[in-house]
């Protein structure tokens, strides 16, 4: 009896050991030709019409193409359109690439382009990102391989708008008709990878499109694995279960840089954090006070200490790679200069040593936020501390990012902007198209003053408006660049913002992944058509 149970027990132990060994083998082996990248959130939808946030666009930018493509130098290149010309001030004619097929085998032609544009421009259910696309009016078929895109008025950055895959990614009309509202889970485009499967919150699998019109993918499968927790990502990467991590947590980047099996790709991005100043508030309507604020913030310290070097101090109102950027000067961190500017504006030290004017103390209502950007709360608090060095009393209110948006843009104070409960607000803004128009017209213009838009500084001087209108309506690069230089000079002079930092984009990949080059636009960072694996 006892011998039998000993035998049974040892057999069981043997089986368990074999299973464990098998488990080890299975866990460590990576499927050949498969590239697995970890993301912290799942895509919302793979339909360009519905999902404009990074987790979705990162994935479907491999599935869909646009008429023109934004290169790594931010210059527009032919993609589904091989050439184009402007036929009149508001119409652009695109000649389409021939012999291109959708991943479901149907033909790509001008009708498919028109279908995509009609769908995105629909009045009843427009594409969610449409307001970022500018005044695109409609698409008209000329013939099977020619299409006219019309704008409501002359629009210089039209190519940048058309390159936005999250509005104008070209979709297969047959697939949309077949899947209807479920197209987001069965996406079909013309891109280098076709949709294979999607287990929600687990992984999205794309497979190579062998009929791609351009550079065909070098890998067979591209897997986006969803791992929400940063340390789990690091462990999976270290254990060899994944080949890369998109936007790893800042605390992990230093550790990953020291990992001999990893390459860390870090490039300046297009997202900038800044402080907007409500120029209608009596204290801040004085430009000297605004300039003083600009001198009072040490953006270098914010970038190196708070963001651990994964950001660069802003050099103006736009990231440097943006079309239209010009170096018109920045305010140096200089507390002495700040204090003397305040004194010039009438703020003299009172009996308690703090600045006051007409018996009123220097009070600042600062709105910061948490969420959306890493360490944003910390940055808000750091800014509060820096402004307190001027002797100001700073009342900081930290909002959840989505609440801040509502408070700034939707709730206009009844007594007018001069009675607003905020003097300074912190925000982040990404110049997605890489074109100055996107930020200057979207964030700082008269048509975007709340409640009509997002310009919570309430500033839009007429001469500045003339500059950005010139930049927007001209289609000649030299004219546009000159116009934006003028506009940026005025912004610098009037100091309506305190630009803080430009955030870096980071991707970590195993050394066995070859041929990867980062793209400054976050959305296109994981386009993997020219990436290979060596074993």
């Amino acid at each position, binding site marked *: 009896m006892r011998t039998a149970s000993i035998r049974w027990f040892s057999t069981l132990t043997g089986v368990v050991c074999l299973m464990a060994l098998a488990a080890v083998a299975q866990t460590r082996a990576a499927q050949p030709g498969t590239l697995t990248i970890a993301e912290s959130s799942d895509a919302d939808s793979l339909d360009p019409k519905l999902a404009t946030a990074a987790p979705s666009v990162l994935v479907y930018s491999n599935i869909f193409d646009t008429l023109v493509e934004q290169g790594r130098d931010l210059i527009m290149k032919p993609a589904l359109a091989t050439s184009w010309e402007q036929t009149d001030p508001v119409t652009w004619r695109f000649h389409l690439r021939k012999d291109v097929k959708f991943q479901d085998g149907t033909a790509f032609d001008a009708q498919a382009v028109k279908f995509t544009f009609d769908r995105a421009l629909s009045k009843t259910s427009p594409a969610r990102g449409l*307001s970022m696309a500018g005044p695109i009016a409609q698409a008209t078929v000329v013939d099977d391989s020619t299409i006219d895109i019309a704008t409501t008025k002359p629009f210089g950055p039209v190519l940048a708008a058309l390159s936005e895959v999250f509005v104008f990614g070209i979709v297969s009309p047959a697939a949309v008709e077949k899947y209807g509202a479920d197209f987001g889970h069965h996406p079909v485009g013309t891109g280098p990878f076709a949709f294979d499967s999607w287990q929600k919150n687990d992984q999205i699998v794309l497979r190579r499109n062998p009929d791609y019109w351009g550079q065909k993918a070098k890998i067979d499968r591209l897997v986006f694995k969803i791992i929400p927790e940063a340390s789990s990502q690091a462990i999976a990467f270290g*254990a060899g279960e994944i080949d890369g991590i998109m936007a790893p947590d800042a605390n992990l980047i230093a550790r990953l840089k020291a990992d001999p099996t990893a390459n860390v790709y870090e490039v300046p991005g297009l997202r900038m954090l800044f402080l907007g100043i409500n120029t209608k508030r009596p204290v801040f309507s004085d430009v000297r006070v605004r300039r003083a604020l600009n001198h009072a913030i040490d953006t270098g310290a914010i970038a190196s200490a708070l963001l651990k070097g994964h950001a660069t101090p802003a050099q103006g109102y736009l990231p440097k790679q943006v079309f239209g950027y010009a170096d018109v000067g920045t305010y140096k961190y200089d507390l002495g200069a700040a204090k003397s500017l305040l004194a010039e504006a009438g703020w003299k030290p009172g009996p308690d040593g703090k600045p006051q004017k007409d018996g009123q103390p220097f009070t600042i209502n600062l709105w910061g936020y948490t969420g959306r950007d890493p360490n944003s709360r910390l940055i808000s608090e750091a800014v509060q501390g820096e402004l307190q060095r001027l002797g100001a009393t700073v009342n900081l209110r930290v909002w959840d990012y989505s609440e801040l948006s509502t408070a700034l843009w939707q709730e206009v104070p009844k007594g007018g902007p001069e009675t607003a409960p905020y003097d300074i607000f912190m925000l982040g803004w990404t110049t997605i198209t890489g074109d100055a128009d996107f930020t200057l017209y979207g964030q700082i213009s008269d048509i975007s003053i709340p409640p009509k838009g997002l310009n919570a500084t309430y500033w839009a001087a007429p001469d500045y408006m003339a500059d950005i209108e010139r930049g927007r309506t001209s289609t000649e690069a030299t004219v546009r660049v000159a116009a934006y230089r003028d506009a940026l000079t005025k912004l610098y002079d009037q100091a309506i913002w305190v630009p803080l930092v430009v955030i870096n984009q980071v991707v970590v990949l195993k050394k066995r992944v070859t041929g990867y080059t980062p793209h400054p636009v976050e959305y296109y960072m994981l386009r993997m058509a020219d990436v290979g694996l060596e074993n």
Partner: protein
Amino acid sequence: MRRYVVRRVLLSVPVVLGVVFAVALIVRLTPGDPAIVLLGQGATPDAVAALHRELGLNQSVIVQFLHYLGNAVELDLGRSYRSNERVTDIIATALPNTLLLTGAGLGISLTIGLPMGIASAIWRNTGLDHSLTGISLLGLSMPVFWTGIIMQWLFSFELGWLPTAGIGSWRHLVMPALAVGSYTAANFVRMVRATVIEVMREDFVRTARAKGLRPGGVLHHVLRNATIPLVTTLGLQVGLLLGGSILTETVFAWPGIGLQMIQAINGRDLVLIQGLVLVTALLFVGANLIVDISYVFLDPRIER
């Protein structure tokens, strides 16, 4: 018996409805406009107003809730704001995963907690009892996201025995089930210990011993009488497990309703939040209903 069950089921309906309505109200009163979150940088007031109309958010809460109820009766729980996927489809995919995790966690909790609790009670106030109680205190003090990461480091990174995260094979279930199960086990040990000790104090135990019944037989009778309070605790454990699943699912990237809930809340996906709360409320109410009904079968003294 049948009347009892029917009455309990009918009483559950207003409870579930009340929970869903409360949540529907709360998420709409919470700052943070779903349209602004969905549109991101495209959130111009025109776009926001258009999206409000499209999603029905421009109507009053009562009207929205009544529409929701009307559709819910036909098993249409709406479509997620973010993905436009049917809420019922989302739940149908995610729920089995959470049930699997909860079931495995419950199994581990019982396997560890029951013997430990009984042993603690029988040999109470001995060294064994103190060490078992100490271990359970340790288990309670270690949050699941900490034990989870430590396990990942040990079993995935160092030893390479188990996959770090995700779903797909029995190997993926081991760590998350252990993480959530050991936490609830720690809780369970104490409940079992207290219950068994209390039952052992009862007169019938003294009588049985006096009659000369051997210890195993006494234990058998003790456990039978402890079943009802233990089953009650189990019902409550289900609630703990469902709630704790959010953390476990996040650490282990386990695609259940916990992970869906976190994302729905962050994305202000009101329709999905309501659907998930509805399902969770139904699960909790259902589990406790089963517990209540089981009393009748477990204790012959309870009137049928």
